[in-house]
C-alpha cells in the first residue's frame, strides 16, 4: 500500500503527494511549466488538453482537464512536450494545420494517438477519430489533409519511445485535507471501503465527475477507483451476451461490439470523442443514469442485467428495474456495479441518437426500437426513449399496440401518435418540448422506412 502516486510523464518518473493528488492533470502540468497542454472548456468537449495515456502497449488520447491526478497512479503519460517533432507535427506544419495554435497541441497529441493503432489514416478515419478536438480557425480541412498525408511507417509507436513502465501493482490510499482516495487491487477491499465511507464516489473515467470538480466545486470526502482490480477488466462473450466488467472502457466495448452488435457499435461510434471513450466506462454510463445516456435505450430493450456487489453479497438487477426516478437508482450507497451482462439482440433493431451536432454532442433524444417479427407481422416490440422523461423510458402502450400488427406505414404512423401521447418531455437548452414530441412521433416512421427498404 502506497501513500503517494507514482507516474511517468514523458518517460520521467514523478511522485505526487498531498494536495497535488487531487489536482486535475492539466492544472498540475501547467503549474509545472508544461504549458503546451491548454485548458479551454474544462469539460472534455474541446480536446485542447489532450494527453496520451498508456494502456497495454498503446498510448490513448484522454482529456487531461477532467482527469484528476489520482486516476493516473502507475500510468505512463505523454504530453505535447514529449512528442519531439514527429511526422504528424511535420505534416501539420506543411499543411497549415495550425493557425492560432491554441488547439494545436491537443490535435497533434490526438493525431499521434491515431497512429498508435494504425499505420495510415484516411479521411473517414480522421473525421471519426478527431471529433473530440475543436478548432475555430482552420475549418478542419487542412487538419484532415495533414493527417492523411502522414506516410505509412513514419510514426514510431510511443511505447518504443517511452518503454518505461511502473510495475508495482500496489494499492494506493491517500488522505489530504479531509479527502481520501483509495485504489485497491481487490474487489473485497473496494467493497469494504465502500461500506466504510459514505458518501463515497466511484471514479473510473470520471468524465462526469471531472466536470463536476471543475464546474460545481465538487469534492467528495472519499473517492474510490476500481481501475487496479484486474477481474473487473473482463470483457467476453458468454451464451448470447457480452459480459463487461466495470473497468471496461467504452472504446473497448465499441471494438468488441463491432461484429457482435453492429447497431450498438454504430451508436458507440458517435457516442463521444476518442478521448471520452478511452476514459469512460459502460458501468459509468449506467451509474450516471442520465435520461439521455446513449447506451441505455439499447440496454433496456435488450434486457441487460447488472451485477451489483457489496460486502453482503451479489445480486442481479434487470436494468429495466434499475432506474427509479431522475438519478434515483436501485443501488444502495455501499453497493458497486461490478459487471454488466449485455444480451446480443438478433431481432430487428435500430438505435437513434438525435443531437444538435452529430458528433460529440449530448443527445436531445435517443431511442431503441426492437421488433420480433414473423411474415410481415410484429410478434413483440420493445421501445425505449431517452430525453423524454426523468429516466430512459420504456413505451408500454406503444409496445402493446404494435404486438400483432402488420408491418406497414399506417401501423407506425399510429404507433408514433401513441408514443407521443405516452410521454411528457420538458424544454431545456438541448431542445423544446414540441421538438421532442415530434421526434418521438417521427422516429417510429423513420424506423419503418429504414426496415422497409
Amino acid at each position: 500500500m502506497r501513500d503517494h502516486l507514482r507516474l511517468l510523464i514523458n518517460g520521467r518518473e514523478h511522485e505526487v503527494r498531498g494536495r497535488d493528488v487531487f489536482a486535475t492533470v492539466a492544472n498540475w502540468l501547467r503549474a509545472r511549466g508544461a504549458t503546451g497542454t491548454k485548458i479551454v472548456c474544462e469539460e472534455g468537449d474541446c480536446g485542447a488538453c489532450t494527453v496520451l495515456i498508456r494502456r497495454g502497449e498503446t498510448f490513448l488520447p484522454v482529456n487531461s482537464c477532467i482527469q484528476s491526478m489520482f486516476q493516473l497512479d502507475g500510468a505512463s503519460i505523454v504530453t505535447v512536450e514529449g512528442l519531439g517533432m514527429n511526422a504528424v507535427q511535420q505534416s501539420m506544419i506543411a499543411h497549415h494545420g495550425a493557425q492560432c495554435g491554441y488547439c494545436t497541441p491537443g490535435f497533434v497529441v490526438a493525431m499521434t494517438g491515431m497512429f498508435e493503432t494504425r499505420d495510415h489514416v484516411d479521411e473517414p478515419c480522421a473525421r471519426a477519430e478527431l471529433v473530440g478536438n475543436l478548432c475555430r480557425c482552420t475549418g478542419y480541412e487542412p487538419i484532415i489533409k495533414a493527417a492523411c498525408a502522414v506516410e505509412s511507417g513514419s510514426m514510431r509507436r510511443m511505447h518504443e519511445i517511452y518503454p518505461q513502465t511502473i510495475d508495482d501493482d500496489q494499492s494506493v490510499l491517500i488522505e489530504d485535507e479531509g479527502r481520501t482516495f483509495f485504489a485497491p487491487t481487490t474487489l473485497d477491499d473496494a467493497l469494504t471501503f465502500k461500506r466504510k465511507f459514505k458518501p463515497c464516489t466511484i471514479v473510473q473515467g470520471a468524465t462526469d465527475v471531472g466536470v463536476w470538480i471543475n464546474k460545481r466545486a465538487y469534492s467528495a470526502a472519499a473517492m474510490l477507483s476500481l481501475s487496479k482490480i484486474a477481474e473487473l477488466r473482463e470483457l467476453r462473450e458468454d451464451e448470447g451476451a457480452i459480459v463487461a466488467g466495470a473497468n471496461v472502457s467504452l472504446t473497448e466495448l465499441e471494438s468488441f461490439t463491432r461484429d457482435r452488435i453492429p447497431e450498438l457499435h454504430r451508436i458507440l461510434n458517435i457516442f463521444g470523442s476518442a478521448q471520452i471513450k478511452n476514459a469512460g466506462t459502460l458501468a459509468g454510463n449506467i451509474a450516471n443514469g442520465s435520461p439521455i445516456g446513449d447506451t441505455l435505450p439499447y440496454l433496456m430493450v435488450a434486457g441487460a442485467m447488472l451485477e451489483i456487489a457489496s460486502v453482503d453479497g451479489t445480486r442481479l438487477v434487470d436494468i429495466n428495474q434499475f432506474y427509479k426516478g431522475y438519478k434515483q437508482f436501485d443501488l444502495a450507497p455501499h453497493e458497486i456495479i461490478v459487471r454488466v451482462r449485455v444480451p446480443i439482440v438478433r431481432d430487428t433493431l435500430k438505435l437513434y441518437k438525435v443531437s444538435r451536432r452529430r458528433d460529440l454532442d449530448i443527445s436531445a433524444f435517443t431511442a431503441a426500437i426492437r421488433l420480433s417479427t414473423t411474415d410481415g407481422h410484429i410478434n413483440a416490440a420493445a421501445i425505449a426513449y431517452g430525453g423524454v422523461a426523468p429516466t430512459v423510458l420504456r413505451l408500454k402502450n406503444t409496445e402493446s399496440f404494435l404486438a400483432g400488427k402488420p408491418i406497414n406505414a399506417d401501423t407506425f404512423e399510429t404507433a408514433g401518435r401513441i408514443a407521443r401521447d405516452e410521454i411528457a418531455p420538458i424544454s431545456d437548452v438541448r431542445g423544446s418540448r414540441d421538438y421532442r414530441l415530434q421526434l418521438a412521433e417521427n422516429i417510429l416512421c423513420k424506423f419503418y422506412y429504414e426496415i422497409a427498404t
Partner: protein
Amino acid sequence: MSSVGRNIPHDSARGHVTGESIYVDDMPPLRGEVIVDFYWSPVAHGRIRSVDTTAACGVPGVVALFTHHDLAHNLFGPTLQDEVLLAEDVVMFIGQPIVVIAAESRDAIKAAKAAIKVEIEPLEPVFTIDEAKKRRDFIGPVRHIRRGDLARGFAEADHVIEGVWINGGQDHFYLESQAAIAVPGEHDQLTVHSSTQNPSEVQHVVAHLLGVPINKITVVTKRMGGGFGGKECQATHPAAIASLVAQKLKRAARIAYSKDDDMCVTGGRHPFQNDYKIGFKSDGTITAAKIDCYSDGGAFNDLSTSVMGRAMTHADNAYYLPNVEITGTVCRTNYPPNTAFRGFGGPQGIITIENALEEIAYFLGKDPLEIRKRNCYGIDDRNVTPYGQTVSNNHLPQLFEQCGEQAEYAKRVTDVGAFNASSKTHVRGIAATAVKFGISFNTKALNQANALVNVYLDGSVQVSTGATEMGQGVNTKIQQIVADEFGIDPELVIVMATSTEKNNNTSATAASSGADLNGSAAADACQKIRAGMTEFAANYFERITGLEASQEHVVFARGHVFDDRKPDERVPFHAMVKMAYLDRVSLGERGFYATKHLDWDADTGAGTPFLYFTQGVAVSEVELDRFTGHMRVLRSDLLMDIGKPINPGIDRGQLTGAFIQGMGWLTNEELRYDAQGNLLSHSPTTYKIPNIGDVPDVFNVAWIDAENALNIRSSKAVGEPPLCLAVSVYMAVKNALSYVSGTEIPKIDAPVTGENILMRLTHYTRTLARNGVAVA
C-alpha cells in the same frame, strides 16, 4: 526566387505543434503576482442599492477589492463614450463587472465572490429587438443610404415581395479566452501583456481609466489564440481591470477568463431583424429595394454603429439595386454589448438580399441562380453601389459562371429534384450565393499603419508593426513581403511581438486589412532602408566594376546585392549591410502607409468607403432528414477572387476556416437564454461550434487568377469575405424546404438547427396535408 506567392509555413507553426508557443496565461507567474477576477451583475437590468465587500475583504487569500470609485475615469468606448468599466448605480446586463477582486489564489477568488453582497433592485429588462423598437431605445442615429426613386421603382415592378430576415447571434469561441497580465514598472509605468487585436486601444483606454498619460502604458501582444473580432474592443476590459489592480497594489496582476465566464460576459455577433420589400419585373430584375436593418446592439454601443454601417453597405451584396433605400437602427437591449465579429455586419446585410433573391426565384418559379445572375453587378454598366462607389475590377459575372460550371450546378439541380421525388426519408437542397466584400475600415482614419524595420549586422531583420497575430498569418505575409524587399530568404526575417512601444496609434487588426495596411507600411520602411543602401552600393559597385555609379541598376535579389550591368560582381546581402553600416548608413527605418482614394460620409450614406472588393461565389448542397430535421452538408464549392495571394497556403486556410465558421453561425450555433437573460449555452457542451464531422463531405476551395493593382503585391484581403459564402448552406436548406412547402415560399430563421428544420418540415407537411396535397 520571390518569397511572396510561396506557400511557406506559418511563422509560429513550429512552436504551435510542439506546444512551445506562449500565450498570455502560459507566461510563468511573476514575483508577487496576484490573480484577478471580478464579481459581475447577476441581473440584466437594475439599480444598485448597495455594494458590501466587507466580508469578502476578510476571506483568506484575498488581497484587495476595487469598485468604480477606484478608477480615475470610468466612461469609455471605441466610438461613442457610453460604456462604464465597472457599474456605478445601474447594471445593464448579466456579466457586467461591479467589483474587481485581487487574490493570491483562484480558491480565494471563488470564496470572495460568494462573500460579496450586492443589492440590486430589478428594472424591466429589454431582450428583443421588437421591444427596443417599441420603446424607441436606440444607440446612435438612424442612418440611411438612398439612391434613385423608390416610389418609381416599385411602380415599375410587376411584383413585390416582403418579409423579415431574422438571424441569431454567435459567440466568437476563440479557444484562448480573454486574458491579460499587467506589470507595474518605474514611475507609474505599466506594461500590459494583452491578448488583444488592438494594442493601441488597450493602451489608450487603460491610460484614460487610470488617469495617466498614454506614454506611461506599454501594451504587448505576442499572439492570440484566436480573435475573430472578439478581441478588437472587448480585450480592453480584462486588460483595464488587471491594470487597475497593478496600479493600486504595485504588484503584477493576471486575469484569465474561464470559457464559461468569457461566453457569459462578452458580446458576439449581432442578431439582426431586417424588414425587406423588393419590387421586381417578371423576369426577376429588381426595380426597387427597401431594406430596414435593425440590430441587437446589447447594452452599450461598443462597435454596433460601425457594424451597422457595414451591414448597410453590404445589403446590396453582388446585386444592382437601381432604386433603393437602406436604413440602419441599432437597438439597445440588456445583453452584453455585441461587438466586432468576422464579417462585421457584412454577413447580416448580405444574407438579407440573398434571401430575398431566393424568394423572388420561388415566387416566379425560376432558377435562383438565374435570378442572381440577372441582378448581378455589371462590368461596364449597372455597376454602381447604392452609396455611389463603382464596382471596379468586377469578377462577379465570371465567378457565377465558372463556379456554377465547376460545381455542375445545373445537373445537380435536376438530381436534387429527382432525389426528392423518390426519397421518403430525406430531402435535399442546393443553392449558389455570392459575396462582394468591401475592403477598408469605413472610418477613414483607421486606414493607416506604421512599421519599424531593423536590419542587423549579419543581415538578419526584425520587423515590428501594429498588426497582431491571431492565427491568420499576417506575420508570415509581412515576413514574406519584407524578405522580398531585400531579396533575402524569409528565414532571415522575424516579425516581432506587437508593442505600442514600437508602433504607436495603430488600428485594430481587423476588417481583413491587417496584411494590406501593415504589409504596405513594412514595405515602405524597407524601401527607405534600401534607398540608403542603394546609394552606398551604387558607389561601391563603381569602385569595384569601374561602371559609372547608378542607383537604378542596383538590385537586391537572391540573397545578394549587385549592379545588374555586372551581376557577377555580387555581394551577399549581409556583407553589403556590414559595409553600409561602416559607412554610417541607416539600417533601421519606420514606414508609413495611408490608404488612398477613400471618402465616406456616414451621415449622407454616400462616398467611396472601400479601396476594392474581395469577391466570391459558392454552391452548397445539403440533405435534411425528414423525420429528425438533422442536416448534413453534402458538398460545397467555393470560388473566389482574392487577387494574387501572398501565401496561398495561408489564404486557403482563411477560406476553409471562415466558411466553416460562417456555417456554424447559420446552422448549429445558438445562444439560448432563460427568461431572466442568463445565457444557458455558455460552454461547448451546449454551444456547438462545427467540429471535424461537420466539414462538407466534398469541399472544393479555389480562386481565379486575378490582379489587384490597388493593393500590395496585387493581393487581396481574405479574412472575412469567405465567411459570407456560408450563406450558400443556409440557402440550400431553404431550397430543400421549397420542395415540401408546396406553393408557399419557405421561411426559416437562422440558425437552421435540427430543431428549427424539423419544426418547419412539420409545419409544411401539416399545411399540405390540410390542403389535401399528397406528401412524398
